[in-house]
């Protein structure tokens, strides 16, 4: 329970007033020399327990009257979340609002989304903290934004629905930055979130930093968490995994669109209608759901898309969370990803060519092989990947290659295959001596399977690097030391390193695919590795068609991105949808992490906010906005009046009659006396 006028509570000791008056009365006794002591002793012994109980009850009622009166005057509020017990309104309230896609979910019997509900609760709470400045920090821009009128929060664009993910630790860091920078005298952080684990990342080491920073704040900062987590009603979500367009007929440009999507459900299975929109035309198919998550690929024969590409969306029927029922896609005739392999080892060149363009019938992967001597004059900027093995290029060529990398291309450098001493090779990489393994070949035992060319496959299986046998190796010595090791041998020497250079990357592999060097030529590692390098390097050839809302930033500042569908509110900064800028199209979708229903356990919150004073309002979703902090003084006043009535009843009852009223017995005594006289 909190109080709007907590200073009134200082008046609470006045409930002792009746007791003090009673004691004073007792102290102010008169001394009477008394003859009829025998009756008095008898009376005192019999001391009418009932009268004593009444006296005590009277005292109690009087104390209660004052107690409830003081209590009512301190204006208590129930709700327990907002309103501080000690110091009144804080100077600054940082409203940290999670408006990620999952916040669009609804409580099972509500029409409001969690975000709307949170805003209603927050603006209601803000009314009680009228003296404070309110600063909004939301999850997309994470810019502290001062709000003049908290009641306008519901209509503010910065608090509207998004299809983004939220990074709660980052938002808290922003809040802390604000507090450190602005140094308010007293501050509170009001954090409204649905406690989605993917947003909170409770295992992240960032939390230790946040705890330390909260503990280090000069002012004591109260963190109030509005816990909007819900068990979740029946909800289906759809997420697009890939939209691949493959040209089937090179003449007409007709092709096949393969949409890989995943439908997740929390319990409900059965057949659901799936509404497919392609370039504005709608069709409906049924999807049969058997498990909690189901991956599916739908294929459509489509005509040649326009220059910018075709677009569409997949829609599930309405359910408890409207935000995760749509997946957008843009498909486009794939741009040919050209790979140039430069090597003076024919076998190496051939193997890389096959790895780069395994299917000659597909136009989207092409490869050519050149010897270093003939490399000059190649149009580097049309390439996605350049594989270089052998002698370094001439200066002019090297500059062109650097420019290619800086513009976003990927350069994979292979060992020269002979001892070259310390002379610098391609991209400033010099090579060590050739090492030959003994009986046991070199083994790659550690590699980065989360990121980079050796990461797991989409299906989650690791690349079989452990099976890779390396007989000979030659270690790159990178001129710039800041190279990331993507794979390493058992003895700690790098297998594959890479570093960023401008917009592109330079990778160096320490072995060759030739048989006498390693088993790379078998392809089970090489093929995915090269394809991934091509995918990275191909980004600069064609702008992306799919991106994640909130993470995507327009690459060019030219023109403006406008939604293709105008029937819903769309902001390319945070709303999913199809956006067009000139001929360019992009489909923004919510991050997959938003569809994961895992929650942070509320028992874990105090641990996360170890350095701060934490109040958690659990079950906020069921709480009506007007109940958030209902004042209960009317009940107190009624209680006061009730006790007053009781006190009055008791005080005027016969046993407590004022002593001055003459008892009835006296006239009778007189009458008796008269009788005596008469006798």
């Amino acid at each position, binding site marked *: 329970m909190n109080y709007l006028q907590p200073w009134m509570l200082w008046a609470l000791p006045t409930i002792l007033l009746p007791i003090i008056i009673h004691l004073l*009365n*007792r102290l*102010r*006794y*008169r*001394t*009477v*020399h*008394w*003859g*009829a*002591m*025998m*009756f*008095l*002793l*008898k*009376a*005192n012994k*019999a*001391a*009418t327990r009932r*009268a*004593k109980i009444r*006296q005590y009850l009277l005292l109690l009622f009087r104390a209660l009257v004052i107690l409830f009166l003081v209590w009512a005057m301190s204006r208590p509020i129930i709700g327990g979340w907002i309103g501080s017990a000690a110091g009144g309104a804080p100077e600054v309230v940082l409203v940290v609002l999670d408006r990620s896609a999952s916040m669009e979910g609804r409580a099972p019997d509500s029409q409001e989304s969690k975000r709307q509900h949170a805003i209603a609760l927050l603006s209601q709470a803000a009314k009680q903290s009228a003296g404070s400045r309110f600063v909004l920090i939301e999850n997309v821009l994470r810019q502290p934004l001062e709000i003049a009128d908290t009641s306008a929060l519901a209509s503010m664009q910065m608090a509207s629905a998004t299809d983004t993910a939220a990074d709660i630790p980052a938002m808290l860091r922003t809040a802390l930055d604000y507090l450190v920078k602005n140094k308010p005298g007293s501050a509170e952080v009001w954090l409204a979130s649905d406690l989605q684990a993917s947003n909170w990342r409770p295992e992240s080491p960032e939390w230790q930093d946040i705890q330390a920073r909260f503990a280090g704040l000069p002012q004591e900062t109260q963190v109030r968490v509005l816990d909007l987590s819900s068990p979740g009603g029946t909800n289906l979500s759809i997420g697009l995994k890939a939209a691949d367009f493959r040209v089937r007929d090179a003449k007409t440009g007709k092709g096949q669109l393969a949409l890989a999507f995943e439908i997740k459900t929390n319990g409900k299975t059965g057949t659901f209608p799936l509404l497919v929109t392609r370039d504005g035309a709608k069709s409906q198919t049924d999807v049969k759901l058997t498990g909690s998550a189901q991956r599916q690929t739908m294929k459509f024969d489509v005509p040649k898309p326009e220059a910018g590409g075709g677009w569409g969306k997949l829609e599930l029927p309405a359910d408890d969370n409207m935000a995760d029922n749509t997946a957008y896609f843009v498909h486009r005739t794939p741009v040919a990803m050209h790979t140039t392999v430069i090597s003076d080892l024919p076998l190496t060149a051939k193997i890389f060519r096959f790895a780069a363009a395994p299917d000659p019938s597909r136009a989207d992967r092409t490869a050519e092989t050149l010897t270093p001597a003939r490399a000059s004059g190649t149009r580097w900027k049309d390439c996605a990947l350049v594989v270089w093995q052998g002698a370094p290029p001439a200066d002019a060529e090297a500059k062109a290659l650097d420019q290619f990398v800086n513009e976003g291309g990927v350069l994979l450098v292979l060992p020269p295959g002979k001892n070259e001493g310390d002379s610098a090779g391609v991209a400033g990489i010099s090579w060590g001596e050739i090492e030959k393994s003994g009986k046991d070949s070199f083994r790659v035992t550690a590699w980065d399977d989360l990121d980079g060319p050796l990461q797991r496959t989409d299906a989650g299986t690791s690349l079989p690097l452990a099976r890779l046998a390396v007989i000979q190796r030659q270690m790159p010595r990178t001129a710039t030391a800041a190279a990331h090791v993507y794979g390493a041998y058992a003895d700690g020497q790098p297998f594959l390193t890479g570093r960023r250079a401008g917009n592109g990357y330079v990778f160096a592999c320490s072995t060759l695919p030739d048989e006498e060097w390693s088993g790379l030529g078998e392809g089970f590692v090489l093929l995915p590795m090269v394809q991934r390098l091509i995918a990275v390097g191909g980004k600069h050839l064609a702008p992306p068609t799919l991106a994640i809302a909130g993470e995507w930033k327009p690459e060019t500042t030219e023109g403006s991105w406008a939604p293709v569908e105008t029937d819903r509110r769309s902001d390319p900064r945070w709303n999913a949808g199809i956006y067009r800028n000139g001929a360019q199209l992009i489909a923004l979708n919510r991050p997959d992490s938003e569809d994961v229903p895992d929650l942070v356990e509320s028992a874990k919150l105090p641990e996360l906010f170890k350095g701060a004073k934490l109040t958690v309002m659990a079950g906020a979703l069921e709480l009506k906005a007007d109940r958030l902090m209902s004042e209960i003084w009317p009940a107190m006043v009624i209680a006061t009046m009730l006790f007053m009535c009781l006190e009055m009843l008791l005080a005027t009852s016969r*046993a*407590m009659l*004022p*002593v*001055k009223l*003459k*008892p009835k*017995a*006296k006239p009778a*005594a007189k009458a*008796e*006396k008269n009788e*005596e*006289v008469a*006798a």
Partner: protein
Amino acid sequence: MADAPPNLEFLDHGVIGRLSRLILNVRNPMLGSVNGLHRSATRGASVEFAEYRKYAPGDDIKFLDWRVFARTDKFFIREFEADTNLRCFLVMDTSASMKFTSTPEGGTRFDYARKLAATIAHMLVHQGDSVGLTCFAEKTVDLPPRRTPSHLRQLYQTLGEAKPVGESNIVQTLHDFAERIRQRALVVIISDLFTEVPPLLDCIKHLRFYKHDVAVFHLLDRQEYDFDFTRPVRFVDLESGADLITDPSVVREAYLDAVQDYLTAIRHGCQQFNVDYHLTYLDQSFEGLLTNFLLSRIRHSKKGGR
């Protein structure tokens, strides 16, 4: 001792004067030594015919009624009432509790008792009866009954010197007294009777057993009866000095009950033993009380056949 002028402030001559036309009567026959106003238990030589009775050998033949003998030829003795004098004992409580008064200007219980005793003594001596005085508290002061005016003076002096101090020992005093005074007498007890009722009634029974005419003036202050205190009071016992702080509003009901029980018990006891009981409040007029007392006795004795 006799020459010192006695302190007579407790004598109200106005009242004495007004009451002088009345006499103090006894309700049952007395056995006096001299002729007096009062009916004797024996037959005597008054002019008042009492009864006839058969002659028995040894009777003085001068009392034979010859006329009856002439008519009936039987010997009858004519008997007359004897008039005798009265011995009265004024038993006055001088314990410390007699000091009490709720209205200081109205005088204490002791003043009232002394006035009562003095007036009754004066009346008795003036109608020729002997009067004695017993003032009891812890110690007892005794004055044997005499009927001389000088004795009255001595009695006044004793009253004047009496002080209400010490604890009352009324039960023991009355028992001793009853044993000491064997001869029929009028015993006037003036006290607040603050003691347990059953032992007190035993004393009265004892007195009545010796055929004393017992009159009781039970002196109570109005405040002791009403207990009209509003604020907490520290009550200090006049006799023992023990004190008790209490809130009268709490104990009042029980107090009034206790007083009522006590008064009812005393009244019933006195009725049972035919005691002339007068519950007297200190604010009652002293003259009116005495007038009532005297008149009721006169009425009683008339009914009794005088």
